């Protein structure tokens, strides 16, 4: 955190900018008004923003060379200094020092004869030493493509700017999310089902149903969550859509999936007949509420399995996160607005327009919680 905060003074920013060719927003010159959350988001074509939630100001705007158009998944290192970014059309992982904007890690997944895409899924071990990346390889022969089997590839985070995997092991197709367990021994991979793999050996430790879930009278569910947002609770949540079969026809329902990374507890519970699409959700610090976002902002009573409140938004937002103290909801993704909403009333408190108004598209909105 101290490194990030060092950007609060204009001289520091100017000095770094001069030496490293960074961009500094004028807002970064303001001193940090109060301790609080910092938000991290990306925007087209190559911007990584660090935002002070308390003052609604951009604290750092880093130009990410090699982003090549868009920043997809953002994973924060356990020490909260490095943001690992999936970029370059999903073919490159970059580690960016959040304070300086300096590139400290680079793994180019593809080679001249093999195109490797990572569909959003990557995770970092709790000790910060290893990145596990989901890889979808295609062999590029002169006149045809050969589809190869997916794999999990493990990179050492200290491998520098030409990182190569230190080991890899087979993975199922169609994985779109990975979540490291806090003991660092295994991680979850989310795809057709919920898989758990041993970090060291790649052994499949278990499979639990997503498509084969066990909710009575429900159709096959649909889940496509690809942002590994588990802060601040260590619990991952996602909307899940299915139809419940009734005698007079099928009724579309929205459920909340909840996965506790520490305990492994997994649950699904319908909370409303589908009335508004929800793109992503986050769990409140007290775990009593989940907040969902798309064209509306939704509050869900997690224990009561019911819709608490819903308000329309100014436009589409894909990404949602929550303040460390649970009092505010942060929304981002799509367009250049980062919104600050009251967690109780769901009323809008502020909108921060990102410099240059570049589109966040499918960048993860992460929160670094002040400690």
């Amino acid at each position, binding site marked *: 955190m101290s490194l990030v905060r060092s950007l609060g003074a204009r001289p520091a920013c100017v000095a770094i900018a001069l030496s490293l060719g960074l961009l500094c927003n004028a807002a970064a010159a303001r001193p940090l008004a109060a301790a609080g959350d910092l938000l991290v988001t990306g925007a087209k074509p190559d911007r990584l923003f660090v935002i002070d939630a308390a003052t609604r100001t951009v604290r750092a705007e880093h130009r990410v060379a090699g982003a090549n158009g868009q920043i997809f998944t953002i994973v924060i290192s356990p020490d909260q200094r490095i943001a690992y970014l999936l970029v370059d059309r999903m073919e490159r992982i970059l580690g960016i020092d959040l304070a300086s904007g300096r590139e400290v890690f680079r793994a180019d997944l593809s080679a001249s004869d093999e195109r490797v895409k990572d569909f959003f899924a990557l995770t970092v071990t709790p000790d910060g030493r290893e990145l596990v990346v989901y890889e979808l390889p295609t062999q590029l022969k002169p*006149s045809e493509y050969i*589809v190869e089997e997916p794999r999990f590839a493990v990179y050492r985070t200290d491998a520098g700017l030409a990182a190569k995997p230190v080991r890899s092991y087979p993975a199922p197709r*169609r994985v779109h999310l990975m979540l490291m367990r806090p003991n660092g021994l295994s991680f979850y991979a989310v795809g057709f089902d919920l898989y758990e793999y041993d970090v060291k050996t790649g052994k499949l430790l278990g499979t639990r149903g997503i498509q084969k879930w066990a909710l009575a009278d429900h159709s096959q569910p649909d889940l496509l969550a690809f942002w590994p947002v588990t802060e601040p609770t260590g619990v991952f949540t996602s909307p899940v859509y299915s139809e419940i079969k009734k005698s007079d026809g099928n009724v579309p329902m929205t459920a909340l999936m909840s996965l506790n990374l520490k305990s492994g507890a997994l649950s699904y519970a319908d909370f409303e007949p589908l009335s508004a699409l929800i793109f992503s959700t986050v769990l409140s610090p007290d775990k009593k509420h989940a907040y969902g976002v798309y064209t509306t902002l939704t509050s869900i009573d997690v224990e009561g399995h019911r819709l608490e409140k819903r308000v329309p938004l100014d436009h*589409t937002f894909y990404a949602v996160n929550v303040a460390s103290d649970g009092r505010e909801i942060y929304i981002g993704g799509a367009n250049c607005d980062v919104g600050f909403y009251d967690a109780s009333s769901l009323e809008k408190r502020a909108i921060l327009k990102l410099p240059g108004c570049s589109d966040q598209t499918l960048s993860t909105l992460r929160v670094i919680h002040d400690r």
Partner: protein
Amino acid sequence: MSIGFVKNWTLVAGALLLGMGCHSTAQAAAHASGENLMRAYCSGCHQEHAGGLERISAIRKTPEGWIMTLVRMRQVHGLVLGEEVRDSIVRYLADTQGLAPAESAAGRFALERRPNAKDVDLGPDIGVMCGRCHSLARVSLQRRDADEWRKLAATHVGQWTSIEYSASGRDRPWWQIASGPQPDKLGSMFPFSSTAWRDWQARPARDLSGAWVVVGRVPGGKDFYGTARIDREAGGDYQAHYKLADIAGFEFAGDSKAIVYTGYEWRGSAQVGDRALREVYAVSEDGNRITGRWFDADHAEEGGEWIAIRETGPAEVLAVFPQSLRAGSTATVTLVGNGLGAAAASPLSFGAATVATHVQREAHRIRALVKVAPDAAPGLRTVSAGGALGRLVVYTQIDQIDVVPGYAIARVGGGRIDPVTAQFEAIASTRLPGGELLGLGPVEAEWTTSAFDAEAKRTEDEKFAGHFDKRGRFLPSPAGPNPAREFSGDNVGNLTVLAHAPDGKHTVEGRGHLVVTVQRWITPPIY
């Protein structure tokens, strides 16, 4: 690809005109050149195999399909070809690895860029696997054996990672299906080898030079007719010179330069009046009829039917304008066709209870003032002129208006992507005493919209989505977030189309359905 693709394709079509011929000696020379160029530029990656080039020699496609292939080779693999080289290769491949007329018939609407056409039905499996992104016409316009279809599936995975994750992909083991049973099925439905193609390749080439009679439709506007003089150039391509008139009598001229691929695929770039047009026509097997669709060079949704027959052909009425007359009315009727009888004494009849006066005869057109008796029985009349027969309907009242198309899509636009309009017509029918409905053709109508359902009413789609012009063409609103709408929504809409056609003191209402939706960002020649 987006609009650039269309412009590139247009460029290709235009540049192809400078290339070489495809008939007899010229054709042989062009093929030799095209084959050599293909080997020179493609064999670096597509190696020689069993007398052909890997992949390339295992596929048959339409001219547009091969153009798209070469555009993709440029965009994805950096293949840089000069225009003439590219055009020669396309011509060679379309001629030697094209589709027979019977094979392209089902998907012609896609080549002709017909808006709101009903897609071909290839069954639910292929409908989901391919149809969730492409028209199924695009699938039906390719020929490959199972192994080559399987390689195409691999290309999709390597090129578009999200294919396994997007809707109707993630709900199934997509790759297992796409690499397993699906290619076998496609290979049996659309195999590389076919009797139709072998027979087509064996047929004699047709020379389209000569004089032709033409009729063109203009949905929502004035249909036209006239003559075309088609000349074959030394290289085997064609120039056409049009002398045309619309049904109101306004005369205009045009010229077209065209290539005929595969022996029947006429692709012309025309300047008609002040409009740049594209012509996607098919030549009949006997070489005596050319049919298809013309459309605006920049707005493919705006266009109409085209039919041309040789002047030397048998007696035939191509068109009767208008298609119907009200009992008790007098109107100018125009017949267009062959063998209508140019001599003053030639027989001419518009059927029972009609009288024709002020008859003007030309070689391929008769214009007459036709009076229908007030007590004329409603029904179908046979029009006879010389040895040609046509049809005309006499009616007393309009009983039904069908909005055509009954369901249409328009797209908001602006900036990089132009809006896509939707043209409607009010097609009238009368009910005969026996209860039978008889079509009267298009009639003028007043065009309005209303909300299609309660949700469209709540979101005020009618207010935001666009408006009609007087000719039944819906003009969508500009694209982009609209802060005045809920969620800053785009100017999309779900609308009921209302056509009110006057019929004496009354009006008759017809209804259709219009969805105004977002831009199509990828606009290749075949969707």
